[in-house]
């Protein structure tokens, strides 16, 4: 470790925040860009599975809540791209990498939303798992990322409560609604567990990221915490977690639970999830069909600037 690197690590160890103009190791910058960018992309792609139900929301109030939520997700994308920009990578560049498949987004969004109960399950489980990941990241070492996380977490926990409220309505509704709620839990349980990533023993970059406080907890810790919090919530809903091995372990003070099918995880990561192709195509198409729009605004801005310039020359 060079003296610079050592000083950097000591700042982190003391709990200081690193700010954009300050020196940082290349690996730190790269890892952050990858992680923040991936998170930003997830917010953007994450609009799609929920957007799928906006036009079919069952009441005006539910429609308004869902719209507000999807809007928040776009907003989170914006914060995160801005945080990434402080590391010297532009939003367009990151978008290009998303669209070309060079950068990933969270695999959870490659699963389809098939019934209205999925709007509940996504809020409850997917946002719930996201929050588990994000709450500790409020204390991450990189200042802009930490501040973005603080804003995001506030809204996410609101989303999670709304999702749980939908599940409650469904689970206590008609038999058909209850069936949809159970089916949604069945479909989203394991994908939600996958959101924490493979077990730490299989995770390559974990140790360095944790030293840098880019990653605050191990994947397994977070997954356990998620299970411990979620299982009682499922019980309260009267729904059954689709895991026959699930039981409370008094000795550990935790639930024992089955691992998700990691083969499926890697298949989805490779592009063989139910909606990978459609999600990416939807974003690509939005981008391509929006080219004339972006060009138009840029051309107008150039013209307006030229007009202002010539007006100020004329005024001299």
């Amino acid at each position, binding site marked *: 470790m060079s003296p610079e690197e050592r000083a950097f690590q000591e700042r982190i160890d003391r709990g200081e925040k690193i700010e954009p103009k300050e020196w940082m190791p290349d690996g730190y910058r790269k890892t952050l860009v990858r992680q923040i960018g991936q998170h930003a992309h997830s917010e*953007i792609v994450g*609009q*799609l599975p929920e*957007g799928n139900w*906006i*036009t*079919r*929301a*069952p*009441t*005006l*109030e*539910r*429609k*308004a809540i869902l*719209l*507000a939520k*999807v*809007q928040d997700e*776009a*907003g989170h*994308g*914006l914060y995160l*791209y801005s945080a990434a920009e402080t590391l010297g990578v532009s*939003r367009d560049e990151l978008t290009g990498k998303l669209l070309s498949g060079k950068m990933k987004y969270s695999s959870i969004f490659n699963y389809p939303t098939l019934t*209205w109960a999925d709007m509940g399950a996504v809020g409850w489980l997917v946002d719930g798992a996201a929050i588990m990941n994000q709450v500790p990241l409020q204390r991450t070492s990189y200042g802009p990322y930490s501040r973005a996380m603080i804003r995001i977490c506030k809204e996410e926990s609101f989303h999670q409560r709304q999702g749980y409220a*939908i599940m409650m*309505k*469904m689970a206590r*509704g*008609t038999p*058909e*609604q209850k069936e949809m709620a159970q089916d949604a839990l069945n479909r989203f349980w394991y994908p939600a567990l996958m959101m924490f990533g493979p077990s730490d023993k299989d995770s390559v970059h974990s140790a360095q990221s944790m030293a840098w406080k880019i990653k605050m907890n191990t994947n397994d810790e977070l997954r356990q915490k998620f299970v411990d919090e979620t299982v009682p919530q499922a019980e309260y809903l009267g729904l059954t977690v689709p895991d026959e091995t699930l039981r409370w372990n008094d000795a550990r003070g935790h639930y024992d639970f089955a691992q998700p099918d990691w083969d499926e995880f890697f298949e989805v990561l490779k592009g063989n999830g139910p909606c990978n192709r459609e999600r990416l195509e*939807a974003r690509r*198409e*939005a*981008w391509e*069909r*929006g*080219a*004339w*729009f*972006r*060009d*138009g*605004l*840029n*051309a*107008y*801005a150039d*013209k307006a600037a030229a007009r202002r310039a010539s007006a100020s020359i004329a005024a001299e």
Partner: protein
Amino acid sequence: KPAFFDWLCRMGDNTAILGHRISEWCGHGPVLEEDIALANTALDLIGHTQMWLGLAAEVEDAGRTADDLAFLRDAMKYRNVQLVELPNRDMAHTLMREFLFDAWHVEMLTALLQSGSPRVAEIAAKALKEVGYHVERSSDLVVRLGDGTDESHARMQDALDRLWPYAGELFLGDGVDAAVAKAGIAPAPGDLRAAWERTVDAVLDEATLRKPEGRFDVHRGGKQGRHTEHLGFILAEMQFLQRAYPGASW
């Protein structure tokens, strides 16, 4: 009173259907800021729908709710102008449609501040705050895209030409409008036209767009429940859950 109910449905159906169309963009906008702004506009319009149809349900006093009116009326009973139900096509059409509507909407709501019905005036005041921003934003974008590249100009002109024959329905009055105007609840639709034209002329001029020469009231009937072929498909989608699971609570 039936006229008042009808008139409230017209207000609420306009915002419901336009909100629906705009919400179709969610996650598919050309740039992130636009995704946010479109979702926000749709959200505002759904909020207005809740207020207008909520009052309509009260006025009708037949035990129906705003949701019943939104989700359990078929196309023949919908009272929105045809303009708002047209497909999104591209952002040019979406924005031009919004602008033509916003420019009317802001005049209508401003006039309603003076409504003899305090409930109507109250809703108008709440909605006007948001709609003032809508028209600002859509005017601004019409100007920037109209005076942008050749392509953006052409697309905006095409959108204007296509939408123009639908705009005039906003200013056509009928018995319902006359009754509501006579009761001092709302202005006669025709009274809003001059102010609308001033806004539209000014914005189109700055946008370097050519105002179409043809009639602007070719397509009409939405206010009386005669719609385009598009509305039925909107409602099939929008109303599915309420129709498929009658009586369920969500």
